[in-house]
């Protein structure tokens, strides 16, 4: 059952030439189907022919995770927590139920905990053993989250990892890394940026990034003047 690859050895190799063009490497392979593509096709056709999967269900699965589930869901949770103190409290007490109030629930979000960034603690989420991730609120994880460099170093060198994402956390702030070793899933509640007092929930949600909800980013002020950025105390 050896798995031969198309494209990804070049992408994953340790000498890693800073080429980002994995789409290109795929298209070079298109004319001759690689072993991996042939294997996926073989499994799909056998599963369908044996009546074990319904082709319409496959389309529905893809459509669901490409269009309905994604980080905009998590951004709505964060914006509501920023604007509604009672919701924030429910979210911190029982995130799974509070997130379900907004219609986001189910697979890979059955047991969710929201962890709060403040002036003392910066939270960072990883899964060193596989790539566990809160699907209902963030969608499917990005490639870097699933990759060896992140999974290896998030626990042992979180400050170095954050630096690569452009974040410098002051020494007096604790970095709390959550390694998702069971079925608990973690969503970071980032700090609300300064200068957003007049924004409504929808405008706030538009500011919230996926990376901020994993903990490798922060939420930036909209059009921040340089002085406000420095004064924000968000960890730079």
């Amino acid at each position, binding site marked *: 059952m050896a798995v031969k690859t198309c494209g990804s050895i070049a992408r994953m190799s340790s000498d890693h030439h800073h080429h980002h063009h994995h789409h290109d490497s795929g298209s070079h392979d298109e004319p001759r189907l690689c072993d991996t593509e042939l294997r996926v096709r073989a499994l799909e056709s056998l599963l369908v022919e044996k009546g074990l999967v319904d082709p319409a269900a496959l389309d529905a699965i893809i459509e669901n995770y490409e269009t309905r589930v994604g980080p905009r869901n998590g951004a709505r949770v964060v914006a509501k927590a920023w604007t509604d103190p009672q919701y924030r409290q429910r979210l911190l007490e029982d995130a799974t139920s509070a997130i379900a109030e907004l219609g986001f629930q189910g697979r890979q979000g059955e047991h969710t905990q929201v962890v709060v960034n403040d002036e003392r603690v910066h939270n960072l989420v990883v899964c060193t053993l596989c790539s566990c991730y809160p699907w209902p609120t963030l969608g499917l994880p990005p490639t870097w989250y699933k990759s060896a460099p992140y999974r290896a*170093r998030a626990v042992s060198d979180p400050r170095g990892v954050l630096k690569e994402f452009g974040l410098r956390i002051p020494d007096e702030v604790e970095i709390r890394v959550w390694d998702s070793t069971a079925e608990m899933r973690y969503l970071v509640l980032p700090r609300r940026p300064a200068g957003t007092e007049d924004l409504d929930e929808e405008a706030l949600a538009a500011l919230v990034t996926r990376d901020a909800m994993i903990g490798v980013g922060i939420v930036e002020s909209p059009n921040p003047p340089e002085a406000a950025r420095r004064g924000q105390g968000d960890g730079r």
Partner: protein
Amino acid sequence: MNGAHDLGGMHGFGPIDPDPNEPIFAHEWERRCFAITLAAAFTKRWNLDMSRHARERMKPDEYLSTGYYEHWLHGLETLLVESGLISVQEIEARMRGDLSRASPVPDAPAAMNADQVLAAFAQGSSVSVPTERSPRFRLGDRVRARNHHPIGHTRLPRYARGRCGIVRECRGAHIFADTNAQGLGKGEGEHLYNVEFTAEELWGEGAVARDVVRLDLWEPHLESV
């Protein structure tokens, strides 16, 4: 098992190199692999922990030189073959372009249709288990993660084994992944705790004293100190 999947603390992989413009799936085969893996799980011939273990059993050199959906593909193929739903010969024949009829599966479960699949995803699958047994540890207890090296599946990563931490959350009983991965049934579950380890305890010299790592570990992973 001490496989290549247990990456925490390893060196030498280089920068993280995020691509801000990546699509959800980089290749069509990744999209298909994702969908057939999720759909095939509804045959109920395996559970999520068995599925993780099937990916972990990939040879270390192969695991490290392939991407996420190649791990999924390897896991799915392993599970399909081991559960007897598809044979290696059938897969190889298809890959050669031989389209002879697939052998039927006796007692094949009916495939879930699109509505059923989406309803099942929305429902999710809780791993909480009601239990009468009281937890062995309490909030604030100092515990040590066992130093053991099981050849089967475990969710206790190598970097935490033998290290001491503090219980920060008692989460009630959850299905115990390590035994569930053996396909022996969900059992009565085991109490799950969130344990805080200081960076110094895990990584020693040079760690930032203030920093911590939190892991969810089950009672059989832990000893009193």
